[in-house]
């Protein structure tokens, strides 16, 4: 039998239907809701209210 010294690149194995976990998406949405950015006299303030 012929011996194979190579194997398919991992890129061929990537499942195109992969999605992030729901908790990651939820975290991002909560982060977005908590973040407030406002300007006051040429200064930008950021607040993160949890």
């Amino acid at each position, binding site marked *: 039998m012929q011996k194979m*010294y190579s194997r398919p690149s*991992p*890129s061929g194995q*990537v*499942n*195109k*239907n*992969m*999605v*992030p*976990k729901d908790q*990651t*998406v939820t*975290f*991002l*949405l909560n*982060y*977005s*809701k908590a*973040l*407030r*950015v406002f300007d006051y006299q040429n200064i*930008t303030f950021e607040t993160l209210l949890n």
Partner: protein
Amino acid sequence: MKKSKSTDAVLVTAYLQGDESALSTLITRHKQRIYSFIYSKVFDRDVAEDVFQDTFIKVINSLKRGKYNEEGKFLPWVMRISHNLVIDHFRKNNRMPKFENNTDFNIFSVLSDNSLNAENSMIKGQVASDVRRLVEELPDDQKQVLLMRIYKDMSFKEISQQTGVSINTALGRMRYALINLRKVIDKHNIVLTD
């Protein structure tokens, strides 16, 4: 339903006006593509998750600070951010994706580079020039035999023919040349190793 048909540009505008659900729609619409792209680079679910999260944190920050100007290129913009974060990830870990060796075959046994590195080739050059200078110090008859044997790679038979002495004389001169070289090296504590 109507929102899911809106273009990215419309959703971004809605989000900037305070509609948080627009962001949810944007993430839901593109999460598969972005996550798959990240995973195809890092091959680790946890790292992909982290990079995905950092990507959207950057997206949210940029949008809320008004640093994003809509040119109908929301997805390419997000992909570029995730691409940069993937690069940052590898830079931070100081490595690129590893080739995993099978136990019975090591790719580097085929790919190895046998040439000397810069330091070793400099040392080798210096040692060679030092030896050359020491050879110049030898008596002429010994030097002649040594140069013919070592540098010109001639046999002792050829050397004896060319110099007009017997083979034994040539052998003797070679022997004394080496002895004298060793003496000089020992006397001056010269180090000729790399």
